[in-house]
């Protein structure tokens, strides 16, 4: 009985913190329409800043609190509103989502940069030296009492703000129609700012209150938010009272699980994963209103030509061959990731690019693929590779079932929860038996991974594995191009653009979604298996949620609808980041923040970098002499390097220079030619007068008119 009370009080005080954080989340979502994935990360930053001020620099607690809550948090909220969110106000839900995911990833990376994660830090509880209060059979510490008092104060304060003040009314009104609010003389930007300031402050309060209970760790603190998400989902992202109720449910559940879950090897992870599990379930149980807003402008999905893709695939294999011949064994392991990351990133193209389903657990799917290959393919049996694909695909199909009910932010949340469940629980399990089947994943630590054996030929050195992975990336890119050009590709795009039209035409939403989730999880699983082979051994941490965010962000930056995205993301994450990191610790920190910064730049170019690069290189493709010269020069460099005349980095630098120079030369030549032929500047009304009428002109006009 006493235990029941004690755990109840612990639960209620955690619930109070979740309620504070969750209400901040609901406040910003209802006012600005942005679901802030980085909300917990903001609280995490506040906790670290508070630690720095009090423990690090020895400032008195009240002063530190004022500095963090009244100066730093509002400043941060304003900064985020101005620099990150205002530019994307006009973009669709997906872009806003990516922005806050980029912020989450960036803040974790920044915190690890500023505060060395290898150094243990802890915050003392408030009033630690004051005696606890006895109430009946249980005791309440002053810290616990304080959290509950703060939560109640927050609840009352928010109620007064929203229903008793003018700015509160404006904030509630801008939920419905911001343009209309502007017309009535209110200032929607101001209500946004107020919402961000308050939201960040609430996150900061929550972060500072919860930090003493856990160790000060950037990703752990940021992900504590999962529980606050659950609370917010109870409130359906709108109702503050229901959010508080949700917080109580989550807080008590966690506390009682700690108290009453039996002790064995399989269940400690379940306790850690419980909030995520609850989030997943609550997403499924509560009905969701269709989220506000559609993509403002549909951007056509490029349909790559088969010939072009074949050329591209050939280039990928060639690139792999050249790299494999140039790199030493150590570098082969480092840069071998290029192609396996590429395959994993490619899995986003059908799922997020075509079907518009944003999943944040693709790297977890890769983890499943890697684990299956590690065990089933321990002796390199080739059949284990399709098995890895199939099992990862099956896991993907499993997520698709709930995905039918979820879209946009809710789906991203659901997949986040799924990734966390795998991270904290499933991937940490020792091997177990289900229905007589012995299942082992990472065996609670590291598993060794063997290379494949191709009809008796064992691939086990780095260069062979690199070429093997390059071939798979080429094949996967080709497969995606074929898919895009075919029936299924069209259907996926149609499904995203209008579910109603797709269904009334006879399309089966469930089947299509399950198929695309399974397909992309299968591709990710293949990528994971290839990654494992290259790394020789893998651990569960390599496939965690936070590890997967940079890959997702770079893929978004590359452009989710481009088939070339696999190579782009692979080269960026698996190639260029290690190159930059080689320059020292500072540079390494830069690379961990880079994907987030790139993601934040999304507002400038929502189509992504790959289409831009491709159109930039089109003049080179048309200019046969320059292209030929480039190929000969690159081949020459390669031979020189193989003869040890040039060293690896010099070859790399020269090759890069040649490629850029050739592109610049071809573009300049084409522009010069265009300038010489006078007709480019003839205005449309003079076509056929100042220059001859061409056959394609009618088409151009028709399209221009149709385009309005």
């Amino acid at each position, binding site marked *: 009985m006493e235990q029941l009370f004690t755990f109840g009080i612990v639960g209620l005080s955690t619930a109070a913190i979740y309620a504070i954080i969750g209400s901040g989340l609901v406040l910003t979502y209802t006012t600005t329409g942005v679901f802030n994935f980085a909300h917990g990360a903001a609280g995490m930053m506040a906790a670290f800043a508070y630690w720095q001020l009090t423990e690090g620099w020895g400032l008195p607690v009240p002063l530190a609190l004022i500095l963090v809550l009244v100066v730093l948090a509002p400043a941060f909220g304003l900064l985020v509103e101005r620099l990150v969110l205002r530019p994307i106000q006009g973009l669709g839900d997906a872009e806003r989502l990516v922005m806050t995911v980029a912020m989450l990833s960036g803040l974790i990376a920044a915190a690890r940069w500023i505060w060395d994660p290898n150094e243990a830090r802890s915050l003392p509880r408030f009033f630690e030296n004051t005696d606890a209060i006895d109430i009946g059979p249980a005791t309440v510490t002053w810290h616990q009492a304080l959290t509950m008092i703060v939560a109640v104060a927050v609840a009352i304060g928010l109620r007064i703000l929203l229903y008793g003040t003018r700015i509160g009314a404006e904030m509630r009104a801008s939920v419905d129609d911001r343009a209309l609010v502007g017309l009535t003389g209110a200032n929607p930007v101001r209500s946004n700012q107020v919402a961000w300031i308050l939201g960040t402050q609430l996150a900061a309060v929550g972060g500072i209150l919860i930090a003493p209970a856990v160790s000060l760790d950037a990703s752990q603190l940021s992900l504590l938010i999962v529980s606050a998400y659950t609370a917010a989902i109870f409130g359906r992202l709108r109702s503050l009272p229901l959010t508080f109720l949700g917080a109580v449910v989550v807080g008590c559940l966690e506390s009682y699980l700690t108290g009453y879950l039996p002790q064995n090897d399989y269940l400690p992870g379940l306790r850690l994963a419980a909030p995520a599990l609850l989030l997943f379930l609550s997403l499924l149980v509560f009905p969701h209103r269709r989220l506000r807003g559609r993509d403002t*402008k*549909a*951007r*056509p*999905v490029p349909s790559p030509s088969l010939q072009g893709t074949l050329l591209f695939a050939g280039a990928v294999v060639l690139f792999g061959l050249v790299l494999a011949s140039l790199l030493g064994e150590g570098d082969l392991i480092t840069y071998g990731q290029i192609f396996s990351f590429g395959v994993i990133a490619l899995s986003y193209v059908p799922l997020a690019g075509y079907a518009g389903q944003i999943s944040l657990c693709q790297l977890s799917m890769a983890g499943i693929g890697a684990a299956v290959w590690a065990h089933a393919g321990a002796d390199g049996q080739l059949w284990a590779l399709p098995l890895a694909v199939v099992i990862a695909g099956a896991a993907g199909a499993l997520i698709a079932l709930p995905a039918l009910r979820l879209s946009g932010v809710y789906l991203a949340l659901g997949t986040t929860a799924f990734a966390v469940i795998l991270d904290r629980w499933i991937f940490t399990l020792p091997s177990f038996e289900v229905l007589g089947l012995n299942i082992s994943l990472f065996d609670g630590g590291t598993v060794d991974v063997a290379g494949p054996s191709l009809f008796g030929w064992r691939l086990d050195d780095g260069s062979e594995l690199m070429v093997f992975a390059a071939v798979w990336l080429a094949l996967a890119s080709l497969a995606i191009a074929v898919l895009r050009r075919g*029936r299924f590709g*069209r*259907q996926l*795009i*149609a499904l*995203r*653009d*209008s579910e*109603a*039209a*797709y*269904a*009334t*035409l*006879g*399309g*089966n*939403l469930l089947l299509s979604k399950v198929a695309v989730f399974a397909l992309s999880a299968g591709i990710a699983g293949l990528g994971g298996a290839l990654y494992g082979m290259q790394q020789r051994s893998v651990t569960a941490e390599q496939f965690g949620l936070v590890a997967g965010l940079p890959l997702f962000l770079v893929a978004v930056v590359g452009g989710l609808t481009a088939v070339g995205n696999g190579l782009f993301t692979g080269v960026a994450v698996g190639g260029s980041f290690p190159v930059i990191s080689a320059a020292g610790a500072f540079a390494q920190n830069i690379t961990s923040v880079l994907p987030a910064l790139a993601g934040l730049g999304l507002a400038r170019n929502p189509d992504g970098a790959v289409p831009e690069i491709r159109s930039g290189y089109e003049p080179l493709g048309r200019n046969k002499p320059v292209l030929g010269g480039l190929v000969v020069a690159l081949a020459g460099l390669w031979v020189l390097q193989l003869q040890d005349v040039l060293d690896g980095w010099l070859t790399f630098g020269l090759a890069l220079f040649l490629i850029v120079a050739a592109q610049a030369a071809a573009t300049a030549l084409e522009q010069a030619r265009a300038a010489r032929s006078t007709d480019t500047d003839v205005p449309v009304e003079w076509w056929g007068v100042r220059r001859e009428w061409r056959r394609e002109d009618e*088409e151009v006009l*028709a*399209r221009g008119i*149709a*385009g*309005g």
Partner: protein
Amino acid sequence: MALLEVREVTVAFGGVRALSDVAISAEQGRITGLIGPNGAGKSTLFDVITGLRRPSSGQVFIEGREVTRLGPTRRSRHGLARTFQRLELFGRLTVRDNLLVAAELGSNRRHAAELVDQILDRLGLTRLADTSSDTLSTGAARLVEVARALAAQPKLLLLDEPAAGQDPEETERFADLLRSLAAEGTTVLIVEHDMDLVMSVCDDLHVLDLGKVIASGPPEEIRRNEQVLAAYLGDAA
């Protein structure tokens, strides 16, 4: 037997009845019009017929079989295809691909490409075939919606304000298209505000007002119906 029969359908949103005890039918190979002031419940009725919205009570029959409990996907196999008042084109696909999706989901998957070319030609859309459907003008987009519905080779074609945004000449051509479709045996149910078009092409009319059917019959009869005039022009008329 009527190809489509809607029996006593009621749709309630909370306390508001968007449709109450609506009964209409559409005969095989005829053009049936559904008219009424804005907010009368026409689009809601379309949603009920195509399975996007489940009625609170009532039944929907297609060729005598009850389909009330079927979702939109399974209902489409009974030969239904529709257009949307608020355009629902696949904006990231070209016009041709919009039609291809419909044709490939239909029964004649093998010859989808030829079918699509035929329909594009018939509706005069060939020159727009490779245009991104998001860049079309409203009038053209509505026509593409009709084309897409036709690519599903429906027995019953439901058109929700297809002629809005068309000029008189285009409307005339559209009327011809509807007549020829009906002559080929396609059943058409059309919601339209252009009364000239409705009166000239429709064989039967149903008039909805405030969620209730206030009149049903041939156009000449409806034109003289006092209740209809009152609904359209106000009680003073």
